[in-house]
């Protein structure tokens, strides 16, 4: 896959980008760094899909610590595994948590706006 600008479909290799707010934690004040966030998702993949699942390559493109929102990028054949393991990931260090996925799209540009929240004038 090419370097940074990888959002174009090229030679049948398509990446899907997820925008999700995660996790909604019981204790709101817990802070998660980007590395901890990625480690948390890898742990979830490992529980559900084993070593093979933990080897799934996904990227955290952008992470906002205050709202705990992130952009994840994953090859399209790994989407089902990633999404299902995010759904079933229930606890972070003994706190109950939940992932909410806001948007999924093969194009990064499409995640900038949401036509449902569009305000006309």
């Amino acid at each position, binding site marked *: 896959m090419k370097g940074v600008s990888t959002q174009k479909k090229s030679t049948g290799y398509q990446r899907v980008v997820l925008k999700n707010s995660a996790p909604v934690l019981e204790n709101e004040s817990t802070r998660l760094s980007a590395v901890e966030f990625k480690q948390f998702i890898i742990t979830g993949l*490992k*529980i*559900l*899909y*084993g*070593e*093979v699942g933990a080897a799934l390559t996904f990227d955290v493109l952008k992470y906002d610590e205050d709202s705990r929102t992130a952009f994840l990028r994953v090859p399209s054949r790994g989407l089902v595994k990633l999404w299902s393991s995010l759904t079933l990931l229930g606890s972070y260090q003994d706190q109950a948590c939940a992932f909410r996925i806001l948007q999924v799209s093969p194009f990064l540009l499409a995640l900038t706006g949401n036509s449902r929240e569009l305000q006309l004038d």
Partner: protein
Amino acid sequence: MVRIKSRYLLCEINVTDKSRLLLLDDRAVMTAVRTAVARIHGDYGAAQCIIGVSVKYMNAHTGMVFLRFPKRCYKLLWSALPFITCMETRGQKIPCFLNCLHVGGTIRTCQKFLIRYNTQQLHRLLPKCKNEETRETSAEEADSEEDEVV
């Protein structure tokens, strides 16, 4: 026709120390397969192992095992077999590895392959046998293998 299809994997267990091979039984093999699948494929793999996965035949003298997998998930479970490094039985850990020789749709096809394989091995090994004793034991084992599976 509605028929439940499955895949039978003929595997050979290789151990460095031949005498310890005799300690293995089908339950040890089953637990080794289950733990390997759970480690490699997680909860999803462990769930596939519940229904329809079993050890159909185990010969401790030659180390041949018939594993039964459902047709829908046999490739996934097959991919976890190379990660088995040791089997635990009666409190002892025996280092070993599994070699998959043949995949068949029924036990009968696997048995036919096993008989052909044994005759080939016999033809390879007999010229090398130094004395009558080893010659006889290996011929005996191959014969008993043929009869047992049926």
